[in-house]
C-alpha cells in the first residue's frame, strides 16, 4: 500500500483525485500542492458567468477549507514544483520545500500559450486563472472595443460576454474557421453567423503582424493583411501548452504532454499523470494517442486513477470524450472527437437548433449538438457503445436514432 500520495496540481484533476481517493477509502496521507493562491476551483465559469459578473469567487471553489480538513487532505496553495528527485522520491518546490512522496501524481495542467515576441504591455490579457478573470471583469465596464486573438472556445466565450455588454469585438484567427481544432465546418459556420448577428467581426485566415501600442499600453492589433483593429483591450487566447518541463527534466518520457500507459503511469513506476498535461492511448483519437483539455477528461481520469492507486482497479478504462461550450446563447455539446471526421451530416428541428454528425468514412466518430441536449445524450450512447450508424440513418429526419441503440443491446 502506498503510504503517502503527493498530488502536484490543484486544478480539477488534482482536486477530484484527492476527493476520489478518500471516497475509495484510501487510508494513507494525501498532500495536494496547488500553484495558485486559491483553494481548488472551477475554471469553466471564468469565461462564462463569472466573467459576466453573475457569480462571485466564493461560488468558484470546489470545497471550503473545512472539507479538506475533515477528509484529511492536506492542501498547500501557492506552491509550484520546480524539480523531481526520482531517486530520493522527493519533489523540490520553487520556494525551497523538499517533500517526500510514496507516489507522485502530476496534475500540473497547462499554461496559456503566449504571443511570440510580445513584451510586457498593459491592456493585453489572457484568461485561464481566477486572477486573470478578475482583471478582465474589472476592465469590461470601462472599455468600448476589444480585439481577441484566437477564435477557440475561450476567445469566443469572452467575445460573447463582451458583445452582450455592448463592447465592439474583433476576433482574429489564422485558421479559416472558428474553433478549427475541435469543431467541424457546419457548426463552426453556425456559430460564426450567430456571433456576427450580435456584432462580432471576424478576421479569419489572418495572423497578427504586430500589437500596436503607445506609452507601454496596447492600443490595437495589425493583422497580417495590414488591417488595423483599434482596441481598448486585447485578449490573447491562442491555446495552451502542457506543463511538461519538470517531468522532462526529471527524465520522464514526454510527447504531446507527459506520456502515460494504461494505468495512467509515467515511465517512472512511482509517478502517475492525468488531466490537461497527460498524453494517453485512446481508441477515440485518430492517431491512437491524445491529450484532452477538458473537465470531463479530468473527472474521468481522476475517478479511475483513484481506484488504481487505492488498489481497486488495474487499468484506466477510457470513457467517451465529451465537451461543452456556451456562446452567444447557444449551448454546444460535443460527443466524441471531431478531428477524425471527414464528412458531416446535419439533422435539425428547424428552429435553429441542430446536430452535426461527423463520419470518418462510414464510421460515426463525433456528434456536435447546438441547443439539442437530447441529441447529445443519444450521441453519447451511440458512440460509447460503438453502435453502427450510417449517414443515411442520420440524413433521414424520420429515422429515430435510438433504434440503433436497441440493436446493440
Amino acid at each position: 500500500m502506498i503510504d503517502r500520495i503527493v498530488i502536484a496540481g490543484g486544478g480539477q484533476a488534482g482536486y477530484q483525485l484527492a476527493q476520489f481517493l478518500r471516497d475509495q477509502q484510501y487510508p494513507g496521507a494525501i498532500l495536494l500542492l496547488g500553484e495558485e493562491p486559491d483553494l481548488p476551483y472551477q475554471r469553466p465559469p471564468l469565461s462564462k458567468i463569472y466573467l459576466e459578473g453573475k457569480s462571485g469567487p466564493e461560488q468558484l471553489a470546489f470545497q471550503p477549507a473545512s472539507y479538506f480538513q475533515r477528509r484529511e487532505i492536506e492542501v498547500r496553495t501557492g506552491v509550484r514544483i520546480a524539480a523531481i528527485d526520482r531517486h530520493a522520491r522527493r519533489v523540490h518546490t520553487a520556494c525551497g520545500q523538499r517533500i517526500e512522496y510514496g507516489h507522485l501524481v502530476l496534475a500540473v495542467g497547462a499554461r496559456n500559450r503566449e504571443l511570440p515576441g510580445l513584451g510586457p504591455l498593459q491592456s493585453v490579457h489572457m484568461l485561464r486563472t481566477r486572477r486573470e478573470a478578475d482583471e478582465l471583469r474589472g476592465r469590461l465596464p470601462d472599455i468600448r472595443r476589444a480585439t481577441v486573438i484566437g477564435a477557440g472556445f475561450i476567445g469566443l466565450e469572452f467575445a460573447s460576454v463582451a458583445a452582450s455588454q455592448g463592447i465592439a469585438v474583433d476576433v482574429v484567427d489564422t485558421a479559416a474557421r472558428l474553433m478549427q481544432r475541435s469543431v467541424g465546418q457546419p457548426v463552426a459556420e453556425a456559430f460564426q453567423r450567430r456571433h456576427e448577428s450580435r456584432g462580432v467581426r471576424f478576421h479569419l485566415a489572418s495572423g497578427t503582424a504586430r500589437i500596436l501600442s503607445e506609452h507601454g499600453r496596447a492600443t490595437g492589433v495589425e493583422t497580417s493583411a495590414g488591417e488595423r483593429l483599434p482596441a481598448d483591450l486585447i485578449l490573447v487566447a491562442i491555446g495552451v501548452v502542457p506543463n511538461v518541463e519538470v517531468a522532462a527534466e526529471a527524465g520522464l518520457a514526454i510527447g504531446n504532454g507527459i506520456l502515460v500507459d494504461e494505468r495512467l503511469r509515467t515511465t517512472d513506476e512511482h509517478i502517475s499523470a492525468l488531466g490537461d498535461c497527460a498524453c494517453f492511448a485512446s481508441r477515440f483519437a485518430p492517431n491512437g494517442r491524445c491529450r484532452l483539455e477538458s473537465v470531463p477528461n479530468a473527472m474521468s481520469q481522476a475517478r479511475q486513477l483513484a481506484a488504481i492507486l487505492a488498489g481497486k482497479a488495474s487499468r484506466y478504462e477510457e470513457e467517451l470524450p465529451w465537451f461543452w461550450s456556451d456562446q452567444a446563447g447557444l449551448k454546444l455539446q460535443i460527443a466524441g472527437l471531431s478531428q477524425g471526421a471527414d464528412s458531416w451530416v446535419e439533422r435539425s428541428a428547424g428552429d435553429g437548433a441542430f446536430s452535426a454528425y461527423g463520419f470518418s468514412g462510414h464510421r460515426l466518430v463525433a456528434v456536435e449538438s447546438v441547443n439539442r441536449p437530447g441529441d447529445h445524450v443519444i450521441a453519447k450512447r451511440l458512440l460509447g457503445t460503438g453502435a453502427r450508424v450510417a449517414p443515411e440513418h442520420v440524413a433521414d429526419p424520420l429515422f429515430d436514432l435510438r433504434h440503433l441503440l436497441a440493436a446493440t443491446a
Partner: protein
Amino acid sequence: MKIAIDTSKCIGAGLCVVASPELFAQRDEDGIVYLINEHPDPQQGDSAREAARLCPTLAITILD
C-alpha cells in the same frame, strides 16, 4: 432551504446526482437535471451545497 436549478445552464455532467442522489436526478431523454425534492431537510443541506459547488456550470443555487 430551497434549491433552484437553471436548466438552461445544465450540460448533463451528472456531478449533482453523484453528490446528492436523493435530491437530484437527470432526465432520460436529454440528461438535464431535475429536482427530486425542492425543499430538502436540514440534514440534506450539506450534500445539497456540495452538489451546487461541484456543478461545472454553476446551474444550482441554494437559497437558505
